[in-house]
């Protein structure tokens, strides 16, 4: 008779905690409680932002020192002094290239032609994805800078250098935000074909996960597409994005034997792996 009594308490504890977790998930999903969790998340993000910055400041010099030591040891058999000078020059060059690259990205951000008169807020990418199950980035601006959830985010880097849509703000804290990338499985962007015989064709681009190509839905089998064709945000009434932001270009398309739709793969025009700076477009469906 001892065993059932012995196990009653752990199972009661489990039941209570599982019920509490399910309640939190349900309340958060239904809206009202979401404000509380968002507030707590904002406080946590604000508290961790300086901690993260401080630790990065500590770790970067240590990493550079260790890397320098390893490099120094490797060239010791040759000419230490000469090699050290070369290393120093290379570091300066790399540093200069890094600065140039940052300047290029920032300058390009200020001159994105597709933004027109839309107001933007530049932001630094502070973190690439806190979850392995979602394609997101964290950026350095938040509600205090005018950022709100659902605002579009654009980047300047890309295969052709023209940049394009990066994603959409999903969480806006006081001084930081989380952006869901267009490649995330939850992302769906209404788009319009820019050029070709079927220019103006509407479709929905869906993310398939980080690093994977986007897929296009609603493209009829008789549509005329070519690799390199560009899709931009459609801007139809009620759309989540303003019209004309380049999103992705076609890299493969085929018609299934029994399918009434064309299967299309696309790559984002913004290089999502090289993002250092982005711009948040201060735009909402009602603006």
């Amino acid at each position: 008779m001892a065993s059932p009594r012995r196990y009653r308490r752990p199972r009661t504890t489990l039941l209570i905690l599982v019920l509490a977790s399910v309640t939190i998930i349900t309340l958060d999903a239904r809206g009202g409680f979401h404000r509380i969790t968002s507030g707590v998340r904002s406080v946590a993000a604000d508290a961790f932002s300086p901690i993260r910055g401080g630790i990065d400041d500590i770790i970067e010099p240590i990493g550079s020192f260790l890397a320098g030591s390893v490099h120094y040891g490797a060239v010791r058999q040759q000419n230490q002094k000469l090699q050290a000078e070369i290393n120093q020059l290379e570091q300066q060059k790399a540093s200069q290239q890094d600065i140039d690259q940052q300047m290029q990205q920032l300058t390009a951000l200020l001159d994105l032609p597709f933004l027109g008169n839309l107001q933007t807020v530049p932001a630094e990418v502070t973190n690439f994805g806190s979850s392995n199950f979602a394609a997101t980035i964290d950026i350095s601006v938040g509600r205090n800078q005018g950022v709100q959830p659902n605002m579009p985010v654009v980047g300047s880097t890309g295969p052709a250098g023209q940049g394009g849509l990066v994603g959409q703000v999903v969480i806006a804290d006081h001084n930081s935000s989380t952006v869901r990338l267009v490649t995330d499985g939850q992302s769906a962007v209404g788009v319009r074909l820019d050029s070709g015989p079927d220019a103006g064709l509407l479709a929905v681009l869906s993310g398939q996960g980080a690093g994977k190509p986007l897929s296009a839905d609603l493209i009829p089998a008789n549509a005329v597409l070519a690799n390199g064709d560009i899709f931009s945000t459609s801007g139809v009434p009620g759309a989540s994005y303003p019209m004309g932001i380049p999103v992705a270009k076609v890299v493969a398309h085929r018609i299934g034997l029994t399918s009434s739709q064309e299967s299309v793969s696309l790559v984002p025009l913004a290089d999502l792996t090289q993002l250092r700076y982005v711009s948040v477009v201060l735009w909402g469906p009602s603006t």
Partner: protein
Amino acid sequence: MTTRGASRVVLVVALFVVVQQTLVLDLRIGGVHPDIMVLLPILAGIIGGPSRGAAMGFVAGLAADLFLPTPFGLSALVATLVGFAVGEATLAVDRTAVWLPVVAALGGSALYEVVYAVLGSVLGQPQMLHTDVLRIVVVVSVANAVLAVPAMRVVNWALPVASTEGVPTSPLSSGASR
């Protein structure tokens, strides 16, 4: 649990959050970063049994949820289940065995990631099953197995009194707890 004990748990959870958010997120292996928050319920389950494993899972999971874009409470739910499961599974095992944290971290982390993806998919995040779950399982499990032994010392500090929950543990463990 005493105030002192609760303070220690809070400190350890905070430490793990800081390390996860500042150092571990930058360690990418095949695009996947380790997740040391999963270690907390697993190790608490070994040290304190199912109840403490579940409780630690709930607290650590809520703390992790603060920084994740996935549904709030999902990590707490999965970590609670994993902490309890590890506690149950290790009740009959000598909890002082050196290999136990390593094996439990390996298996518990794999279980956590799979259940997380499945439950996330059920809760309206279908993309979670479309990610490379196997790669995530491998990276997180192996990294946690490597970190299990040093992490065990930290969690042991937070949960110094081993809960036997009526089940005999090894003489060393029982002696240490009394």
